[in-house]
């Protein structure tokens, strides 16, 4: 069953340079309550990294099942999210690397808003489905930042949240354009002429 090969995900290879890696310190568990701009940006950075890691996992899963086209698309999405995380590190967090609680940010409602749900894959899915997953993630992230901007009391946090919301909206628009260029799947896209069930 096992291929026995040791391979690393593209996200691991594409991680931030060592000096910029996240530092950890103990914080009370609970939902993230970033009080300062740097805390807010640390949460945003974590959201991007989590999204990238999930897409990379999706890409690996699709690779293992020979759905190369969708695997490559998920890998591309992982690279995009990681790039966004790296940009945050370089442009906004270079002087004060993000500090997160052990185990990562405790997002209200489970996972980060931009992280795709773990059970959304199907081995016969097509690029159209993958982009729909990505679109939903970008829209959730946009809503998260927009809601944050409207409730933040600190003016600098509000401004940063608005900027992030605008970026996520732009990403959503780009994916919508991308979707227009991809043919929608046939109705019976799930049909497998040789399904993975033991024959009688």
């Amino acid at each position, binding site marked *: 069953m096992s291929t026995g090969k*040791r391979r690393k995900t593209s996200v691991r290879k594409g991680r931030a340079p060592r000096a910029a890696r*996240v530092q950890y310190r103990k914080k009370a568990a609970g939902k993230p309550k970033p009080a300062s701009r740097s805390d807010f940006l640390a949460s945003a950075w974590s959201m991007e990294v989590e999204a990238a890691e999930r897409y990379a996992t999706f890409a690996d899963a699709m690779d293992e099942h020979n759905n190369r086209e969708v695997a490559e698309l998920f890998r591309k999405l992982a690279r995009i999210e990681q790039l966004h995380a790296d940009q945050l590190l370089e442009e906004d967090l270079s002087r004060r690397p993000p500090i997160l609680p*052990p*185990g990562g940010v405790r997002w209200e409602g*489970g*996972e980060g808003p931009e992280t795709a749900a773990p*059970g959304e*894959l199907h*081995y016969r899915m097509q690029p159209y489905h993958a982009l729909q997953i990505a679109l939903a993630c970008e829209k959730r992230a946009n809503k998260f930042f927009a809601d944050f901007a409207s409730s933040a009391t600190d003016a600098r946090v509000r401004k940063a949240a608005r900027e992030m919301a605008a970026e996520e909206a732009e990403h959503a628009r780009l994916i919508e354009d991308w979707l227009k260029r991809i043919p929608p799947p046939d109705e019976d896209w799930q049909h497998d002429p040789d399904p*993975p069930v033991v024959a009688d």
Partner: protein
Amino acid sequence: MSTIVAPAPIAAQAFKSDYKPIWCPGCGDYAVLSSISKAFAMLELRPENIAVVSGIGCSSRIPAYTNCYGFHGVHGRALAAGTGLKIARPDLTVMVASGDGDGYSIGGNHFLHACRRNVDLTYLVMDNHVYGMTKGQPSPTTEPDWDSKLSPGGTGLRTFHPLVIALAAGANFVARAFSGNPNGTAEIIADAIRTPGFSFVEILSPCVTFRPEQRDWKNQVRPAPVAPTDDPARAARRIMTDDGFNIGVLYKGGRKPYQPAINKGAKHSADLEAEFTI
């Protein structure tokens, strides 16, 4: 003069190995792997201080996907190996992983007695109500009317009720989690590891290939409406009357874990080996 500095905590991702999981796309076990690594990170554990032990089945592939010590044992015997390891090396955090077939059928007897012994380890069962690796046979937790090519008309057999059986047999911590909420599952696993004694966590982990209808579990699960109790009778009543979709810690007792004194005069493994030479 050198200074001893405590090692920095490790990020969750670092508990995963470089082996790519080969579960089906959409399988709940991917998320369970993520939850396990997050739980280890939350507790600020280190891979060299953890052993992940498993039996046979899709879920039992999990030790290879972590950077911890791992033991991929024989079918149904994961708890026996895990128990022996914890007794011999009480300093290790021992996590045992199974599926519903491995844990409740082939390993059913070990399950009962591991609960009864109450050794300080954490037992995760990824329950998808089917034997996935062998292509879809009914397992002990399969519904009696599940109609499939391999069980036409359903088995008609009463389902195994692992949580209440664990409770009756003496497990010190009983919880149910859902793979679709990896962070919530990580919190439960961390709580299970923290609680001394035998901690049992049943994780509803959909098999999207042979039980595609389980994709709908995400719409059926809900947080358990009551806080965990330390009264086993009350916990049993609750578990027996719920529909199997209440998520959370359901029972947390205070039994002292079983940990015999280590025999300092134990023979070297080479001496033991010599005794068994024919």
